């Protein structure tokens, strides 16, 4: 029998495409004029706006990272990437097969290490800079442990031709949620590699057979598998996340956003972002008893933003 909860909560998003567009346009202009150097400030402005328009229990979220903090990380990230690309380029220019394969090995090896470092750093920075009612989020994962786990998981995934990657993804989610904090609230992820694997197999083949039509149900299932397995704990109390997304809803979101972006040659992106966030927030319900006045501050201060920008360069999206 399904547990019955009398208490349900939802995040609400008050953002408007037109307002976000204002920020977006200024960001693009300044980023162009400064040859890209404005990017960290642009990103900070977007995040601040999106957080401020997100509401829970009558209070807005805040992002208090600054462009300056992220700029330092941005420069470091560029330096690291220039470094490893230089190695690759020099190896290729050497025209020596041994040096070339060695260069490639170093390049992919560096990427394999950099990706988890970037995810870790981005999680640390982003959570430490996010708060609600003055209570900070936090991420307590251990970098070394995470990097080891990531490298081992990636290698097994490669050797099993990708099959293990489904178990790997679930492992990563479990680790991240286990170490996520919102003040005194803790989290966990209850997904299971096998179930996730079969969900993907089913979704993939049905999408193939139905010429892609099933893919909207597939995406809906993936979203639901992510959301439904999130748990949040306040002391002994457990709260459960629940997805209400439908395939039709997914179709409207994807088709609408594609049209918006294509017809405006990308200028409509802010409206697409707003629609996507609305979709996620309105389809995610948190069930269970929560004392919203009793979350206490537990996390410490943290200011290194390198991961945030590294993650951007490898194109890793974080919510």
């Amino acid at each position: 029998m399904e547990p019955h909860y009398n208490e349900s909560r939802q995040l609400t998003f008050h953002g408007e495409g037109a307002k976000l567009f204002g920020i977006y346009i200024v960001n693009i202009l300044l980023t162009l004029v400064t040859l890209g150097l404005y990017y960290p400030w642009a990103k900070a402005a977007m995040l601040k706006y999106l957080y401020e328009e997100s509401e829970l229990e009558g209070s807005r979220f805040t992002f208090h990272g600054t462009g300056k903090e992220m700029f330092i990380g941005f420069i470091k990230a560029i330096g690291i990437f220039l470094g490893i690309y230089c190695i690759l380029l020099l190896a290729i220019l050497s025209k020596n097969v041994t040096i070339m394969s060695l260069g490639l090995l170093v390049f992919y090896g560096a990427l394999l290490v950099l990706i988890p470092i970037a995810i870790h750093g981005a999680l640390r920075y982003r959570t430490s800079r996010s708060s609600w009612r003055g209570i900070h989020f936090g991420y307590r994962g251990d970098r070394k442990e995470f990097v080891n786990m990531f490298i081992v998981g990636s290698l097994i995934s490669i050797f099993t031709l990708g099959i293990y990657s489904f178990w790997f993804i679930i492992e990563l989610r479990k680790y991240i949620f286990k170490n996520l904090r919102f003040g005194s609230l803790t989290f966990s992820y209850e997904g299971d590699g096998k179930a996730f694997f079969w969900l993907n197999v089913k979704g993939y083949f049905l999408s193939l057979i139905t010429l892609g039509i099933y893919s909207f149900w597939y995406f809906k299932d993936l979203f639901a598998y992510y959301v439904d397995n999130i748990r949040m704990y306040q002391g002994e109390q457990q709260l459960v996340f629940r997805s209400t997304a439908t395939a039709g809803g997914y179709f409207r979101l994807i088709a609408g956003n594609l049209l918006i972006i294509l017809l405006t040659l990308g200028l409509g992106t802010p409206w697409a972002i707003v629609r996507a966030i609305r979709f996620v927030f309105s389809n995610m319900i948190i069930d269970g008893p929560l004392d919203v006045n009793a979350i206490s501050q537990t996390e410490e201060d943290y200011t290194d933003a390198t991961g945030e920008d590294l993650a951007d360069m490898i194109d890793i999206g974080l919510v």
Partner: protein
Amino acid sequence: MRNFSVRYHDGRLSVAHDAMLTLMPDHWLIHYVDPSEELLSVRWEIAPIVTDESFTGLFIFRYGDFPQQTIECRETELPVALKERYPEKVFFRKKVTGIFRQSNATIIGLAVLLIALLAAAYWFLLPVAAEAVAATIPRSVEAKLGDAMYGSMITGYEVDEEMTTRANAFVKAIDFKTAYPIRITVVKEDDVNAFALPGGNIIVFDKIVTSMKTKEEFAALLAHEVAHVHYRHSLRNIFRNLGGLLFISLLLNDINGIVTVLADNSNMLANLTYSRALETEADQKAMAVLQSDGISLKGFVDLFNLLKGAHGDAGSLKLLSTHPLTEERLDLAKAKAREQVGIKDQSELQRRWEEIVIAGKK
């Protein structure tokens, strides 16, 4: 004294206290009733108060060491009151980013400005930048690129070996005054066309050769194509066009597009239309070359007339679509031919031309 209603967070617990903010002369006083109905007040000194950059109508202030206390206020009169009360402290810095808090008209204006900037960059800045990049490409890379294009194109044609050999012998008899190694390939194609690839390869359709009456016409055509090679017109054209693609690909975040285009479209890239300025430059160089070699410039006049005439009846004439023929070009050729002095004996060139003609009749 002015009071503002605010929400106060003490930084230790997630309680949102509905509080009153009173602006005292040298500090802020925040008073609220806590859940146990006790009246509490907090004092904030002015100097350490930090204003959060905000993008909505919400004003957020932070105070103290971590974990910081915060207050949030929605009252629009607050900034003015703060300015009056504490003229020596700046709470709200004017920032460039403040623009978007302006009217819709400003935002639309900015959007239009952005589109105009992008368009200007695309039409004016990009070609210049692409050509500048093309100019820095070393000759060895240019040769490689040209060879790759030649290799992928030539498979689509049937090469006339005999005419090719003869045409290359013809080329040897003229000093084109360029460091590029000029190699001609004559292909069997029922169209009047010729084009130059980066690095020195020139592909000539046999129909244009068999339509010619004199060696001077062929020399004029080759000199013109060689001038395109010499000034890297073809390379610059390719970069100009790929530049636009690169730009659009960047906008749409699609890098694969460029690679695909490079691989699949060498034929199209070699047949790009030259601008009038490039045509004139090529004509001038070509005429100077023939002039100093003592070859009659009447070849240009005849070549242009041939193209004009063929255009009338044949209809499909690719050469004119890539090398636009204008009255000015024809007039220039006529004038130069009239002024020309010092035409030398060209019996060796004539002999080689006749061999081409014979090969063309086979």
